[in-house]
């Protein structure tokens, strides 16, 4: 996508594996993507495709047995993979904010929500106790937790799921980050609450000009909210495009199958086009295309030769032999 300001974040050839009793599980196998300033970029895929691992790897929050094996994550000119821990700590929560799927488990149950949001402000903005409390009140109002003066001293268990997610957003946005990583931010919420949270994120994005990396399995949320989309399957990006191209002219057989498998409003077809089989486990990824075993258009060389991610037009890339001019050796 052409932008004026250039990319805010560039991930190149990121590789992450989990080292388990059963051996090495390659979760992310050479992912590259860019996030332009102020835009919403979606990373979509089904459970286990590695999308959340990408989110954690960006700020190096992976814990054992996960390890980053290679690649670069360049954020405003600095490579976060090689940055010393103290320097990275100054970026996390300040320049890059994060919200997760489970607002229930991401908040500390023994502190009030006011104390938890204020902590971000002590650490990153060096505010005094008094100044921080005033700022927290302002943030709570902004994310729609009202009356803020009463809510600020409540504990997480006194709030509903939607309210807790608002607290997470207030915390993530306390230092006005340039990038917000939102990992399934509305998955645990009801549809009407999901709509509230998405509206809120959209309004705050417009106001603060921040970029959002939206990680989700929900294609409806992607279509309504993102400008660019990356589709992940078995640890790799198989297709990337602007949101209109992706939904109108999907190229990869997996993306096509996914869109056909989706029950759509107003298209009450007799039958959904199910995708046969299941996703291979990371221990048995084939050397070639990981979708080959389920692909309706599979060819002889697909399971053994890996298709490169190539551009079919300036805003559309796909990793599939069907769209390659040259056939593998």
């Amino acid at each position, binding site marked *: 996508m052409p932008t004026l300001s250039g990319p805010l974040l560039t991930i190149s050839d990121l590789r992450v594996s989990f080292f388990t009793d059963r051996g090495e599980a390659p979760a992310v196998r050479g992912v590259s993507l860019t996030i332009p300033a102020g835009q919403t970029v979606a990373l979509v895929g089904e459970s286990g495709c590695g999308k959340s691992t990408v989110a954690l790897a960006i700020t190096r929050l992976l814990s054992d047995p996960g390890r980053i094996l290679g690649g670069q994550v360049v954020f405003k000119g600095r490579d976060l993979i090689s940055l010393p821990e103290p320097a990275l700590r100054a970026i996390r929560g300040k320049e890059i904010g994060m919200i997760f799927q489970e607002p229930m488990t991401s908040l500390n149950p023994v502190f009030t929500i006011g104390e938890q949001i204020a902590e971000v402000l002590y650490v990153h903005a060096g505010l005094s106790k008094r100044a921080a409390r005033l700022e927290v009140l302002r943030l709570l109002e902004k994310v729609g937790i009202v009356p803020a003066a009463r809510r600020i001293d409540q504990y997480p268990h006194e709030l509903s799921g939607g309210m807790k997610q608002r607290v997470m957003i207030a915390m993530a946005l306390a230092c006005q980050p340039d990038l917000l990583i939102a990992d399934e931010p509305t998955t645990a919420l*009801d549809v009407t609450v999901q709509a509230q949270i998405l*509206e809120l994120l959209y309004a705050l994005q417009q106001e603060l000009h921040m970029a959002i990396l939206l990680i989700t399995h929900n294609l409806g949320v992607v279509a309504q909210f993102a400008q660019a989309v990356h589709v992940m399957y078995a640890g790799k990006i198989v297709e990337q495009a602007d949101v209109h191209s992706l939904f109108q002219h999907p190229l990869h057989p997996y993306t096509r199958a996914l869109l056909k498998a989706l*029950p759509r409003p107003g298209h009450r077809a007799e039958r959904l086009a199910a995708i046969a089989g299941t996703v291979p486990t990371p221990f048995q990824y084939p050397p070639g295309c990981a979708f080959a075993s389920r692909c309706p258009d599979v060819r002889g060389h697909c399971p053994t030769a890996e298709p490169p991610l190539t551009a079919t037009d300036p805003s559309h890339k796909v990793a599939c032999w069907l769209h390659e001019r040259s056939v593998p050796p």
Partner: protein
Amino acid sequence: MSAQPRARPLLEVRSLKKYFPIRKGLFSRATAWVRAVDDVSFDVYPGETLGLVGESGCGKTTVGRSILRLIEPTDGEVRFAGVDVRQLDRKQLRWLRRHMQIIFQDPYSSLNPRMTVGAIIGEALYVHGLARGKELERRVQELLVHVGLSPSYRSHYPHEFSGGQRQRIGIARALALNPRFIVCDEPVSALDVSIQAQILNLLQDLQKELGLSYLFISHDLNVVEHIADRVAVMYLGRLVETAPVDELFRNPLHPYTQALISANPIPDPTIRSERIVLAGDVPSPVQPPTGCPFHPRCPRVMDRCKTTEPPLGRIDQGQDAHMVWCHLYGDARPASGAEVGQHSS
């Protein structure tokens, strides 16, 4: 796919209530009641799928379980094939279970990890004395094939299977006794899109082949629109609207149904729906609001909504009726113009 109009309902639910006590203190006295299901009435016709939608805590799962008497209803009437389900004693309940089954949401916790797949599927046949020995084995294999699994899986344990395969095992278990009616409680919510489509197709195939009726409970409007013939919408323990599926999605009348449908993100970037964003959260069912339970969040609230319950439509108008419980529509004259009646409370 809908059954003939004027058919007799297979299941009739009238004024179903389930209140859960909140117990406190030394003698565990009930200090308050959670009105999980409050005065719910609907029918399910032979061969049809009734979708029951609503958000978490609205009581939809409690409705499903009360019908089967997996939990005992507080009040109301449930008739299955003309038989009053609430009057059945323990022995007669076993008769009921042969005809009414359930499929659960979580295929991980609803299968006993210590039993083989064969034992899980065959248990009901054995307990009901319908098959033993070789015959039992043959039936189990048949059921596995029926749900798209290999008959050799009967000696495996649940942990060896993926979510989609486990849900197939759950479906085979529900089918074992040749039921006529199955409560499907969020059967695809825990599954990925590609697997969800497989299970939805399987449920539709089985329905056609075996003439099953489903009560399909879900929070996912896209799934319900795809699979249901008629839809009932619940809010805070009550029904707010019921209609044939196309009618409900094309012409939703209740402000809650309208908000719910508009909030559902459409997987098409060219369609930008005008979202009705509701303020606030669902209130507690311990102290439901007076009048219409939706009034504190309703964008079209009027004075009488705060004090007076919306009139209840009578349910005996067949399958095509569109009913709404809302003051906006006067004395509950539904869109279909059918005769509708009185206040029940």
